């Protein structure tokens, strides 16, 4: 036994094996630290009101209170806020997918004076702090009566997101032109080519963008916070912050944690379903200089 361990330290393959065991241990400890908050959240969400504020806390509630979720849904009007969030997410996705693909076709396939300059300006805006455009944009939406509607969240999506236009353009550059050329011979217009040839080929990139758009819009807090004032129009993200201190819930941490747990379910489900677009997709396509 001892000699076997000694060999592990001495030989080359032995050292490599020790190396991977050590790596695994470090990674697993790290993973536990990532997951503890989730465990704590679910644990709290299933406790009786009286069991939340005790020290030392119970890690696993003795008698899980599943009805906390029902109570949280009712008290928070969760359905209303979920519907609001869904409406915004769906329209933002449509707008983003359309504008990214449409504009990217122009930037990647058709030549025009100033095209590359416009593209560079677009890329430059990625580094612009949002605060600079915040006040005038708010005042603009306010003056046309869009404050307290979903439009300030939805409409800008139809006018292109720099990063997504960039991603789609890079993708289009890699698509061979032969298909389009033969369609062109047959007399197709550029708009038909975009719709019938490019869009069907855009599956992978549009899926990636859809996933990121969903997560970004679903989690967005600031935009609905400043534009929405009616309680019935709040998104989940904004409604949660009001739930926190509201007299209807008070310091009822178990209900709040039940609501928070529900709120993170859609992005997590999407994440699991589209994992390859998140993790493998980014790792594969990477950033190549």
């Amino acid at each position, binding site marked *: 036994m001892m000699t076997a361990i000694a060999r592990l330290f001495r030989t080359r393959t032995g050292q490599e094996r020790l190396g991977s065991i050590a790596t695994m241990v470090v990674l697993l400890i790290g993973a536990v630290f*990532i997951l503890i908050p989730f465990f704590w959240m679910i644990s709290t969400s299933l406790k009786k009101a009286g069991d939340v504020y005790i020290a030392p806390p119970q890690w696993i509630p003795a008698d899980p209170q599943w009805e906390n979720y029902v109570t949280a849904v009712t008290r928070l009007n969760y359905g209303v806020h979920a519907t609001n969030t869904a409406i915004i997410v769906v329209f933002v996705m449509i707008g983003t997918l*359309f*504008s990214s693909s449409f*504009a990217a076709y122009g930037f990647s396939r058709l030549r025009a004076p100033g095209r590359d300059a416009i593209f560079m300006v677009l890329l430059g805006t990625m580094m*612009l702090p949002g605060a600079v455009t*915040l006040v005038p944009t708010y005042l603009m939406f306010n003056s046309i009566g869009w404050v307290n509607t979903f439009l300030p969240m939805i409409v800008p999506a139809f*006018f292109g997101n720099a990063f997504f236009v960039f991603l789609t353009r890079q993708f289009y550059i890699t698509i061979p032109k032969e298909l389009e050329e033969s369609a062109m011979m047959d007399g197709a217009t550029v708009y038909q080519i975009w719709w019938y040839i490019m869009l069907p080929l855009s599956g992978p990139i549009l899926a990636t963008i859809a996933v990121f758009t969903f997560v970004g819009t679903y989690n*967005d807090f600031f935009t609905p916070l400043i534009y929405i004032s009616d309680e019935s129009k709040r998104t989940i993200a904004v409604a949660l912050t009001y739930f926190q201190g509201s007299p209807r819930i008070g310091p009822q941490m178990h209900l709040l944690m039940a609501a928070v747990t529900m709120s993170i379910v859609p992005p997590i489900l999407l994440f699991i379903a589209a994992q390859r677009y*998140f993790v493998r997709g980014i790792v594969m396509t990477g950033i190549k200089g």
Partner: protein
Amino acid sequence: MVQKSGTIDARRLGKRERREAMHAYVFMSPVIIGLLVFTLGPIIVSLFLSFSNYNLLNDPKWIGVDNYVKMYGERLFWQSLRVSAIYSIVSVPLGMTIALFLALLLNRTMRGIYTLRAIYYLPTVISGVGVAMLWRWIFNGQYGVINTLLRNVGVKGPNWLLDENYALIALIITSVWGVGGTMLIFLAGLQGIPVEINEAAEIDGAGKWGQFRYITLPMISHVTFFNLVLGIIGALQVFTDAYVITNGGPNNATLFIAVYLYRHAFQFLNFGYAAALAWVLFIIVMVLTLLVFRSSPLWVFYEQERQEK
């Protein structure tokens, strides 16, 4: 990055080229309109507003540099700069170091590696209000999970969010938890390094540290650069965590620039002052980004240069 073939002289366009250009503008039109209406226009209006006094009720009144003068004398402005500076100086290098360390560990083939990568990336997917509220509960001085764990090892944890010496530290800890996005970009960079280079170095007798220092670090320097730029820009704009977890408190210990700006714009309706704040933030971000770009020839290596040398 940009195709040279796209550059054509406007004066020498034939009929066909002119048609093509027209279609190109149609395709680009959403982006062009978006740039004008939602970015370039607001930037200019914002600059104008920063020299005015405006609260929605009256017309904007030109007051010259008064907003900037007022800002200079405002204690809370300097406090917000201090908070954002400390946060950025600590959280960006710390987060990048941890992200790179994790990426190095995760950059290997073994069973369960995809699951582990997914777990580390998970916090990035659900970042937002829900998680911020969860952190409030985790940092609860009496019943929170952090102090419970600390108590188990015999340490009495501070009252994190109510203690001005610890609130900012708590927010830095939450930022480290969400380091998965940076980690993933590092991982992408690491996977771009051809295996042969490390093998060759190993045959030449380079140790693990030598390989890391003289091969890995230079070969991912463009990724480090990308993460650094995005990290600085992101750290200087933190809002949600600071607003939901501590709301700038206690005693303004977490009054980030973005929170200070939000209050002036949407609570006090000082739109002129808020615009001036935004411009100061804009200039800080531009100067820092420029410094990083300027310094990049010293430490960022690109494929092309390597081949030329």
